[in-house]
Structures are given as structure tokens and as C-alpha cells.
């Protein structure tokens, strides 16, 4: 659905053929989402079937014949309406209830404090290492789309790390007999 709408956006900027669409999509998304050209053509076929796009017929011909093997596509009014609705609609990407990190940690949080913290520490170290390597590579990037796309990815790692901190707080506050270095904080 996201690829379909993104291709409509590109067609709204002017007619294009499959390879152009693939290249422009990848550049606009900062290289974080490589597309298979087969997927581009399948999506274009569906857009044509649904009346959202049409194949351009070269002047003087009756049937849509590929010119130099490249078929050119254009957006239709129905396609523009679909695109407008998609751009302002709330992002409907499924929340990740089956996200691997979330599941690992939630399963561990239900166990004793020590095993829960072990899992939280290991996941935190892995996320931090990923964030560090994002940071190092980001310093070499100059292409705005690439910088922004990777900003989105590191922002998610930062959010996951902040969530692990909340999990840790929960584990520690709900553990009644935790061993700690302080001796004066016991409840009276």
C-alpha cells in the first residue's frame, strides 16, 4: 500500500516508466528501501487495473505498444484523489504487537528481577551498538533524503532505548526484595 501510494506521488509529478520510478523512489527514500523492479511493474499493473493510472499511448497508434521496451505511465483523476487521501490520512502501518524486541523484553519482565535485567541489559547493549554505528555512518552522509531517512531509523532506536529504561524502572520498583547498595531506603 505504501509503495503503491508513493508511486502515485511520483506519477503525479509527471509521466514515467518503471525504471525511472524505481530509481526515483529509492533516491527519495534515502536508499533505506530498495525496490525490486518486478514489484514496481506489478504495482503499476494494479494501478492501471484500478483506474488510478493509465499507460500512455504514443500518438498515431491504437494499441499501447512499448516504445524501446519502456511503457510510460501517467496518473489519472481517480489516482490523484487516492493520493490526496493517502497523504493526509493517518499512517496506518500496523503497530507492532509482534515486534521481536518487545516480545523478548515483555516475556522477560514477567520473570524474576535478575533474569529480566539480564535481558534488558543485553538488548540495551545491542540497541546502543546499533545506534552508535548509525551515528558514525550518519556523519559521512550529505544527501538530505538519506540523512532524514536515517534520522528516522536512529530515532526509533532511541525510542526503544527509552522504553527499556521504563521497563527497568518497572522491574525494579515492582521487585520487593531487590538487593541494593542502600540501606536507608526501606519503607518504614
Amino acid at each position: 500500500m505504501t509503495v503503491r501510494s508513493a508511486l502515485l506521488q511520483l506519477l503525479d509529478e509527471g509521466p514515467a516508466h518503471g525504471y525511472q520510478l524505481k530509481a526515483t523512489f529509492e533516491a527519495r527514500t534515502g536508499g533505506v528501501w530498495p525496490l525490486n523492479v518486478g514489484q514496481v511493474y506489478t504495482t503499476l499493473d494494479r494501478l492501471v487495473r484500478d483506474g488510478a493510472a493509465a499507460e500512455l499511448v504514443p500518438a498515431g497508434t491504437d494499441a499501447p505498444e512499448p516504445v524501446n521496451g519502456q511503457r510510460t505511465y501517467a496518473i489519472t483523476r481517480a489516482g490523484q484523489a487516492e493520493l490526496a487521501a493517502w497523504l493526509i490520512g493517518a499512517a496506518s502501518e500496523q503497530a507492532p504487537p509482534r515486534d521481536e524486541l518487545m516480545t523478548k523484553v515483555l516475556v522477560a519482565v514477567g520473570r524474576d528481577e535478575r533474569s529480566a535485567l539480564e535481558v534488558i541489559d543485553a538488548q540495551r547493549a545491542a540497541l546502543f551498538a546499533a545506534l552508535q554505528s548509525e551515528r558514525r555512518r550518519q556523519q559521512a552522509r550529505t544527501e538530505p533524503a538519506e540523512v532524514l531517512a536515517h534520522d528516522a531509523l536512529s530515532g526509533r532506536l532511541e525510542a526503544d532505548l527509552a522504553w527499556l529504561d521504563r521497563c527497568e524502572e518497572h522491574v525494579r520498583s515492582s521487585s520487593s526484595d531487590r538487593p541494593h547498595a542502600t540501606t536507608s531506603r526501606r519503607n518504614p
Partner: protein
Amino acid sequence: MTTTSTPATTPPALELVGVTKAFGTGNTEVRALAGVDLTIAPGEFVAVMGPSGSGKSTLLHLAAGLEAPSAGRVVVAGRDLGGLDAAALATLRRRHVGVVFQRLNLVPTLTAVENVSLPLELDGTSSRAARSEARDALDAVGLDGPLDRFPDDLSGGQQQRVAIARAIVGGRSLLLADEPTGALDTTSGDQIIDLLARLSKERGCAVVLVTHEPRFASWADRLVRVRDGALVESAAAPPASPPSAAAPPAEVLV
């Protein structure tokens, strides 16, 4: 013969050995740090994280010589702080340790360059030489324009740069930064942390950054967490491997 030589002549920038810091006594004793070991190499950039009250700031105060440990040793640039009298400690701090806080602590009645040259002048450097070193430090933090302006006439990010210049002036070997981005927006914060990373690499000045934001910690070479007064080092985990065909026969644990 191997060519691996270790620079044995350069001591770690900071070494904590079995450091404990307790406040209060008897039943009301609180141990902010309990038997902490930490070694930071010259030029290393280490981020310290942990929940509030975990002992992060105590760690920084001990490293700065602002507080003495209840047990254990704090060694800065090869000198054990415990063996120094007040005057020697003050001198060691001025020459080797720079501190940057969230609040800027610049002297409002002194210009940027005067703020930075102050610690050198206090240490007996002539005013002329101190100004020259101060200009070098301000240049290193990317501030070469508004040298004669007063702190109030500078932006938050510029003021923090002046504070960092003051902390590194004279080629100090250890920079301690306690939430230096706390008063800044994300972009200025990024620039300040980027600057700290650059100073650690280019000037060989070890940096200890206390922060609660993973974003800023990610510039560091190493992450250390403080939990209940103890240090938890983050070692990167191996990638999860799927169960392999060569797995041992199933054992049921009851």
C-alpha cells in the same frame, strides 16, 4: 621481535579503584557508589548513564576531586588524589581537569575570552600568555567571533562553547561534562556533543559525559551504566542465532 609497543609512559586519564562513597552513618548510611572500578584511557570518550539517584553525579564529583571517596582510590593523570593536600589538589584540578555543567557558570561580568583565561591566570600564567591560550581554546570549540562579548550577549550554545573552552584551556587531559546539553535544543545539543567527540580525538582529552539521552551517548566510544552504586558495562551482544540442526538432544527441565 614484535612491534606492538604500549605507551607505558602515559597513565590513564582517570582511574577509579574500588571506590565507595557513603553519605551518613550507621542505619542512615547511603552508599552512592559501592566498590566501583573504572579506567579511562587518554582521548577516550565515555558516556555514563543511569536513573536519577544512581550515583552518576557522585562519580563525576569524585573524579573532579570535589568530594573524597569513603574507600578506594581516585587517580587522575597518574596522581592519587588521596595523597594530595588541599593546595596540591587545587593545582592538579586546574591543570588536568575541566568541568562543564548543564548550568553554565560563566562569570557574567567577564567577556568570553576573560572567562576562558581566568583559570590560567589563577594558576600564575601571565595575562598575555593566558589570553593567547584562551584564544586557541575558543578557536578549538569553533568560537572565534564574539570573543569580547559578555555571556548574556551569547546564545545558549555559544555560552556552552565558552564553558567547554574554559574546561580545556591549557591542554587539560580530562573533561567531565554533567548533562551539558540539558539547557539546549536538539540541534545545539548535537553540535556540543559532536564538539566533545572531536576534542577527545584531536586533543587527546578524555571525556566523561553524564547524560540521560541515548542520542547524545551514542557519540561515545563506550557506555557505562550506574545501577545501585555499581557499574554495568555495556558489551555488545552477539546477534541472536536460530536453533541449529546440530542442537543437542532435547532435555526436559522440570
